[in-house]
């Protein structure tokens, strides 16, 4: 754990966040914050609200109540410029969601050019740099349909990194992959975690979470049930439901 970082800037600070679909409450009074350079993993069983929380953070889902403060500004405020806020967040999806009409390089370039207004040459340079980081720089001419799941996900990570976001959000990035491809994606993410990037990761990969997390958040039935350092949660969980969940998922 990095001591002395407690007083660092909270990049994202969520207060009393609620989300419901009709009468079904998915998130209940969520309070949660992320500091600069921190790697936070969110674990919990299916349907506990982990992905919904992540999607609320970049407004793919609209929260019903509460606040999301980004550098102190409430982005749920109606006047807030959604597109402008989103460009500071990178998102990696479970289903990759590469742009099907663009090749690998263009996938990483189009956002930079259209949203960040970078020149094409500069954007390509940045994209190549991150494609190298994920080991996909040889595939710049390939179309998404020609790639394996693991390759697609690595390109998706490079696409998000190319926007040089403040925070990277990962929504179960390995859940849709064949088992033998999980490793290559996790390896990339481990490298990123040790590079000082701020990351929020929703995952079912417990070993991975234990290894990379500065902080682990355990969610259950729409609530944050327990939160603490990797060691606290995995070695000495205080809550009964955390213990039960870990017993089920860790062999």
């Amino acid at each position, binding site marked *: 754990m990095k001591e002395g970082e407690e007083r660092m800037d909270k990049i994202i600070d969520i207060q009393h966040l609620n989300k419901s679909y009709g009468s079904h409450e998915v998130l209940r009074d969520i309070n949660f914050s992320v500091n600069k350079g921190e790697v936070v993993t969110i674990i919990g069983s299916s349907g506990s609200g982990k992905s919904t929380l992540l999607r609320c953070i970049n407004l*793919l889902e609209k929260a019903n109540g509460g606040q999301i403060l980004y550098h102190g500004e409430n982005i749920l405020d109606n006047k807030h410029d959604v*597109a402008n806020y989103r460009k500071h967040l990178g998102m990696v*999806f479970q289903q990759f*969601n590469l*742009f*099907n009409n663009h090749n690998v390089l263009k996938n990483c370039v189009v956002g930079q050019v*259209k949203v960040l207004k970078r020149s094409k040459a500069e954007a390509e340079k940045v994209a190549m740099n991150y494609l190298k980081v994920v080991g996909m720089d040889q595939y710049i001419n390939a179309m998404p349909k020609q790639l394996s799941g693991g390759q697609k996900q690595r390109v*998706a990570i490079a696409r998000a990194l190319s926007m040089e976001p403040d925070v990277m959000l990962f929504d179960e990035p390995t859940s849709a992959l064949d088992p033998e491809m999980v490793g290559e994606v996790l390896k990339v993410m481990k490298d990123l975690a040790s590079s000082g990037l701020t990351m929020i990761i929703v995952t079912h990969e417990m070993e991975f979470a234990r290894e990379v997390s500065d902080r682990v958040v355990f969610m259950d039935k729409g609530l944050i049930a327990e939160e603490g350092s990797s060691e606290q949660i995995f070695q000495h969980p205080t809550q009964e439901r955390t213990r039960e969940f870990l017993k089920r998922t860790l062999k």
Partner: protein
Amino acid sequence: MSLEWIIKIIAENWPMFLRGAGLTLLIALIGTIIGAVIGLIAGVIRTIPTPERGAKRILLKVINIILSIYIEFFRGTPMIVQAMVIYYGSALAFGIDMNVFAAAIIVVSINTGAYMAEIVRGGIVSVDKGQFEAAHAIGMNHVQTMWNVVLPQVIRNILPATGNQFVINIKDTSVLNVISVTELYFVTKSISGNNFRYFESFFVACLIYFVMTFIVTRILLYMEKKLDGSDNYTLIGNELNEKKLSK
């Protein structure tokens, strides 16, 4: 003998047939292109997510209602009647003596636009939700998302339906003879009116229509294949890459 008559009719009237066929193709082509553009615009407008409040919401609702009326009306009435209403109606209502060619283009375009609007809407709806989410997540607005990500995929997906529409238009321009557009059917009617050989004359027209639609269909299939691209890709060596990028 019929065959002799067919040859004789072609030999004597081929310039007229050719001009008629040319006009048919021209009206169908321009009409389909303008119709496709109308359809794209209407389709994009109809898939804008409704804002939650404010003047924009009301404006969007009004535009959507107008578009619905347009689509329902032009899909629900025959083109032959639309041609009469627009050609004679414009003269009556606005005192415009419309050029028949312009009237023909307008009728085919707005008729095609009504069908294409629904085809495009279907094409947009069928694009994976993840594509929109990924585009929004990197900060693109609705127009940027549509233009850079969704529409290129929609256009590929609606190409078969657009080709269909083009083929239909080649055939359906024949109804424009009611407003005296000198397309293939109109030309054939005057030729047969002179020689009284109705079967032979229209048989020739039949062949010309078929050849036109057949060629158009083949061209569109070829275009589809081209758009799908090759199944192969080349791996790029690092040195090569840097050269390419440094240009």
